[in-house]
């Protein structure tokens, strides 16, 4: 009874918050956006915009104020959309015992330690592969320091661009941590160390006006790997053969959400126009690969491929709900990235976004099946 009352109160508070937010936007924020372009917005609003949207200093020279009013409406619309999703999730948890049970089962399942160990080794190897040439970029970037424009994390922490010796030290620390993690020596300590250093080194690499998404999925995996190693350590201490795999599930969800939000962005930013052949044609001509230029002359194929890419990106999340789809969705994913490389000249034959697919594989199953086959 008490639980029901608390839920009803939370629900009412949530709805009131959404209504308040909507009124706040229409009566106050929209006006402040216009005033910002006249240099008359309130100080707190200007400071927040400067912190969250450093690019506005550039973009407000390129576009008229109405463009940003439109963008602010988009923010408002998206905020409502996410609030409704949260509300639906809350209602699902409260009213559906089946939903609750499935959620509980999903987050409390266990995996063999041998699988976690294999995942740790592959993560460490992939980490080494991804950062191996960073030190050369940092060496070159010493000359480009004048263009340093810190990304959000570094800006919030007020960190300036460090001397090359410090970057070199951090790089060595990352390499040593990855090697120790691969050898499963103090996995918790070294996964934590590698993850932190990786995130900061990448931040410095991208603090030169252009942030791309090459390592995005690996970055999210890095946030959760220390938790997986923590579970591994606890299981080893208790001499158990299995451990809770919720951090691994978290990594799988992150990878799937990266695709899902890529698809969602296309729907929200582009809408129906995104499926028009002109959109893909534009991008193909912009990147000008020989295959891409050929494809840009095939409007029907452009529309089909545009639709297909959104279906794939939104549908990737199905892998979370249906484990059996792993062997269908992952190869499609690899072909998807190869297609992007071939037609748009982005990425390469080996792409970090599909290298992280190993998180979806149950390595213990694979090895036991291989052993069975070899016995036969």
């Amino acid at each position, binding site marked *: 009874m008490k639980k029901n009352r608390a839920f009803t109160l939370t629900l009412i508070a949530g709805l009131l918050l959404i209504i308040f937010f909507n009124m706040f936007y229409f009566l106050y924020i929209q006006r402040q956006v216009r005033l910002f372009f006249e240099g008359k917005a309130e100080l707190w609003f200007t400071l927040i915009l400067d912190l969250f949207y450093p690019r506005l200093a550039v973009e407000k020279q390129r576009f008229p104020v109405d463009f940003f009013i439109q963008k602010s409406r988009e*923010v408002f619309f998206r*905020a409502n959309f*996410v609030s409704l999703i949260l509300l639906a999730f809350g209602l699902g948890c409260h009213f559906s015992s089946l939903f609750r049970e499935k959620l509980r089962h999903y987050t409390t399942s266990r995996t063999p330690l041998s699988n976690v160990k294999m995942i740790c080794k592959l993560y460490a190897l992939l980490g080494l592969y991804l950062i191996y040439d960073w030190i050369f970029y940092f060496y070159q970037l010493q000359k480009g320091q004048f*263009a340093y424009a810190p990304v959000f994390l570094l800006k919030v922490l007020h960190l300036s661009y460090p001397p090359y010796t410090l970057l070199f030290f951090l790089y060595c620390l990352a390499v040593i941590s990855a090697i120790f993690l691969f050898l499963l020596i103090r996995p918790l300590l070294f996964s934590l160390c590698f993850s932190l250093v990786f995130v900061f080194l990448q931040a410095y690499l991208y603090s030169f006006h252009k942030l791309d998404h090459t390592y995005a999925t690996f970055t999210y995996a890095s946030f959760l790997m220390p938790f997986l190693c923590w579970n591994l350590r606890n299981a080893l201490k208790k001499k158990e053969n299995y451990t809770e795999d919720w951090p691994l599930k978290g990594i799988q969800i992150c990878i799937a959400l990266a695709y899902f939000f890529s698809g969602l*962005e296309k729907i929200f930013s582009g809408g129906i126009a995104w499926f028009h052949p002109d*959109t893909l044609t534009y991008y193909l001509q912009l990147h000008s690969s020989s295959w891409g230029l050929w494809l840009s002359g095939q409007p029907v194929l452009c529309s089909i491929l545009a639709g297909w890419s959104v279906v794939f990106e939104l549908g990737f999340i199905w892998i979370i709900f249906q484990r059996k789809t792993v062997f269908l969705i992952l190869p499609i994913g690899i072909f998807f990235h190869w297609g992007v490389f071939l037609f748009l000249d982005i990425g390469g034959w080996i792409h970090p976004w599909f290298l992280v697919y190993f998180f979806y594989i149950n390595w213990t199953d694979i090895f036991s099946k291989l052993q069975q086959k070899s016995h036969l």
Partner: protein
Amino acid sequence: MKLKQMVFTSIFFLFALPFVFINNFYPSFRFGMFAEPAGKKTLKEEFSVYIVNAQNQQTSFDPSSVGFDKGQFAYMLRDSFYQQKIQQVLRQLYQNLKNNYQIKQLKFVRILKRTEQMQTDTTHTLYWPDEKE
């Protein structure tokens, strides 16, 4: 709140916040690559820097010599152009290059292409180094 719940809630917000605010908040990414429809992109801008030597011959500047890839360098030039900081950028580039090249001047070029009208506008900015430099 249990650690597990906190982690899953954080994951949700790591993805939801950049999506809602249409911005990257590194280490949280917005996945908006190729999301804009073509209709909004009828203008195509190109930015480049040329080195002009004493014989007035000009060569395209290779951004990898200061650690940038081509795309990154173009972004940096675009940002500097719109913030009217091109002269400062050219001065910094000159400081980096003067020992390896014979430079009479640095030339910044912005080409604006209107794709639907097949028109092209070009903007030049020159940087003449001081004798003291």
